[in-house]
């Protein structure tokens, strides 16, 4: 009886998230069908659309490839090489996520006035998306079965062979999930591509909204974007292998010592340092420099209130996403078609430009006056936009829980729900937490949907940055950008701690 109630609750939660995910898609279809046929075919079958298509695809491919190599490389280094202040380094490498892409891009334009075009956009997007792959590979490296690694080394494989034959297959699914997030981020990015003049679908969609208010033409382009993301999502799905190897409880006892070869430490530090320089220190340095070189002043109380507002609404969004994402993660453990469908729907929604999501929720939300322009709706939009970022880590986190532990629990007469809370959830907590963190970080810097859906007069750090940057007062925006990074740093450090605890107290007591 309890069992069926539990499944019912899970199912209800999944259906709710599916219904939310449907909102923007339904919105796009209603808008698209209202367009005239001739303008429609003019729009789709012009040379420019093909050009936009090719640009979008090649930008996504370039960013995904480079970010994956860099992210896995950094993850491997941070896990395996003994480095001074490794916890600090780990947390810092995640922080580029916290810088909104338009701020990031602007700082580079400020250094190199001619900075623009495809490779400039690739550069910016790789730097800001690498942490997605890095986080995914770190999270899965912590869960790798290192006894196999030692067996492989004993059998005479060198470290490269061991990496590709033993370690990589175990972290491959997580990396693919991280790479998928990078792809969807690239598809939906507006800040970098618009400032650098790269014509992707998201830029074209925003331009049509802003220029002609032709909502059906924009909807048609957005549906093409949905199609592209569907293709990318299903190809990621195909590369996914079922995880067979590491579901034994023993692995938790074996944690290899990081390598302490000098020959590795220096190149490793160099790589990390150059990533941090390009992705974090130089952009922040430029902002700080601009701030001090102008007569801008800081309004401390406003800064504090804005920070607090941002944190609370982003946390609420992450919380809603967790409530909806956890059941989905659980259902995904079984071969549930509905869960898979919901997951893909959420991923598609994640690839939508913020302006599309904003307008879709305006269209639906304005009909419900008690909900419209409230914090709740804003937080819901965050959950909807970014939930996909957590589903992957929740799913892999839960999948890594040793089956025999849950079996033992059942044998001892503990029911499924209790087993989940007492065994699965605590063991998967680091993964789940890092998923929640990703939503939190993304929500804090979200702009287009925030501008439309926030309560009137409610400011977040992103809206305040926009307030100044839209009239090119970058120096006034600097304190808000800095605060965003500082706030982002706190949970990033928190997330980085659990693994340390795991290695010290790794035994299941």
């Amino acid at each position, binding site marked *: 009886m309890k069992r069926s109630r539990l499944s019912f609750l899970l199912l209800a939660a999944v259906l709710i998230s599916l219904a939310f995910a449907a909102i923007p898609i339904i919105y796009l279809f209603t808008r698209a069908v209202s367009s005239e046929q001739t303008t429609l075919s003019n729009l789709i079958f012009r040379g420019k659309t093909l050009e936009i298509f090719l640009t979008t695809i090649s930008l996504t491919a370039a960013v995904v490839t480079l970010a994956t190599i860099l992210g896995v490389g950094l993850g491997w280094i941070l896990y395996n090489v003994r480095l001074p202040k490794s916890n600090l380094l780990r947390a810092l490498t995640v922080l580029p996520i916290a810088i909104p892409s338009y701020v990031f891009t602007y700082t580079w334009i400020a250094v190199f006035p001619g900075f623009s075009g495809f490779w400039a956009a690739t550069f910016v997007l790789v730097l800001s998306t690498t942490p997605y792959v890095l986080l995914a590979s770190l999270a899965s490296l912590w869960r790798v079965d290192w006894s196999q690694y030692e067996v492989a080394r004993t059998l005479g494989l060198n470290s490269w062979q061991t990496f590709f034959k033993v370690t990589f297959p175990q972290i491959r699914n997580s990396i693919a999930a991280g790479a998928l997030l990078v792809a969807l981020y690239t598809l939906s990015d507006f800040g970098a591509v618009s400032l650098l003049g790269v014509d992707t679908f998201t830029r074209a969609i925003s331009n049509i909204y802003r220029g002609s208010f032709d909502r059906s033409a924009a909807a048609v382009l957005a549906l093409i974007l949905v199609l592209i993301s569907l293709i990318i999502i299903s190809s990621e799905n195909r590369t996914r292998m079922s995880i067979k190897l590491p579901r034994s409880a023993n692995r938790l006892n074996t944690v290899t010592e990081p390598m302490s070869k000098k020959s590795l430490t220096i190149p490793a530090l160099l790589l990390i340092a150059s990533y941090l320089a390009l992705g974090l220190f130089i952009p922040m340095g430029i902002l700080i420099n601009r701030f001090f070189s102008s007569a801008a002043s800081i309004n401390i109380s406003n800064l504090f209130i804005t920070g607090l507002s941002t944190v609370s609404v982003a946390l609420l969004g992450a919380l809603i996403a967790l409530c909806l994402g956890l059941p989905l993660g659980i259902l995904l453990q079984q071969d549930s078609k509905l869960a898979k469908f919901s997951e893909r729907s959420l991923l598609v929604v994640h690839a939508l430009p913020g302006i599309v999501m904003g307008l879709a929720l305006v269209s639906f939300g304005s009909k419900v006056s008690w909900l419209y322009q409230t914090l709740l709706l804003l937080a819901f939009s965050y959950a909807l936009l970014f939930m996909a970022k957590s589903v992957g880590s929740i799913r892999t986190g839960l999948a890594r829980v040793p089956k025999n532990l849950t079996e033992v629990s059942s044998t001892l007469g503990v029911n499924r729900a209790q087993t989940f809370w007492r065994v699965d959830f605590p063991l998967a907590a680091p993964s789940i937490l890092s998923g929640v963190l990703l939503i939190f970080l993304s929500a804090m810097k979200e702009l287009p949907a925030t501008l439309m859906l926030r309560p009137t007069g409610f400011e977040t750090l992103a*809206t305040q940055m926009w307030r100044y940057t839209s009239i090119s007062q970058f120096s006034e925006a600097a304190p808000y950008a800095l605060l965003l990074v500082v706030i982002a740093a706190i949970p990033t450090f928190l997330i980085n701690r659990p693994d340390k605890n795991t290695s010290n107290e790794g035994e299941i007591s």
Partner: protein
Amino acid sequence: MRKAKGVKRLGAVLFGAFALVSTLVSCSASTTSESQSLTIYSGRSEELIAPFFEEFSKESGIKVDIRYGDSAALAAQLLEEGANSPADLFLSQDAGSLGAVSAANLLAKLSSDVLNKVESKYQSKNSDWVGVTGRTRVFVYSPERVTSLPKSIDELTQSQWRGKLGIAPTNSSFQAFISALFQSRGEAGAENWLNAIKANEPKIYEKNSQIVEAVDGGELDLGLVNHYYIWEVSSELGRPVKAKIDFFQPGDLGNLINVSGAGVMETSKNKAGAEKLISYLLSDATQQRFVSDTHEYSLVLPELKPEDLPALSEVKAPAVDLSTLADLQKTQALLVKVSLI
């Protein structure tokens, strides 16, 4: 017990979120009980316009809730909200966004008191929005690298400007200019000019301010922008920019005058209050401050002018109907056709 660690941490996070949000909600709820209030959707940036709203609020006793955003995005939002919009007043950076909202019949007719203050060419033909400030299209150039100034936009298609010209085709002010071009030369004429410009390999930017910075930085020789960006950029850089602005020959389309403006929403429950705000924006004192603070032109006091520029009546602008600039669909379609956007 290590099991509880992750859970505890998560619990702490969740509790924190609840506490913060409930405090915040209770704070914001307590401020919405006033009887006389206005909800404004402002496409004009907070930095420049907020002091005016504050002063209005103080003088009139009407509380204002201001929603800032990009003019076009706010217009799109108003179109989506339709009859459910909580907005009373729409203040826009450009005539195009007002026109789009007007075309959807979402704006109320304004009283003649307000309309009479501004010349009829700077207001809606449907009497449902009115211009508040004026801005002119100009070219920005580098005095070091450009010795002979172009006399008309057609000169910009000549080979001497190849690769040296900057435009922002996605920007609404550029699109308003193309609408004017469309209106005066017809579709074929506008398309010819755009194709010729495109063949001259212009550098494409997102914003007017980027063009001014590019001229200042030596990356461009000349660009098409609105007149006040030269002050905006120099105040950001904290120094005078190494760029100047000038007009084309009298009557050239490149000297187009556009307006920022305001309209009252048809669904507003406080239309009188909203009109009061428009009257305040059009009052002499406020208009003087627009000219001195934001370097725009006054539409009410034509003799006032931003420093170093001719008066609005002396700007030899082309004769263009601003109401038709609102119809950006054709312009956009044309820009799409020549693949500039």
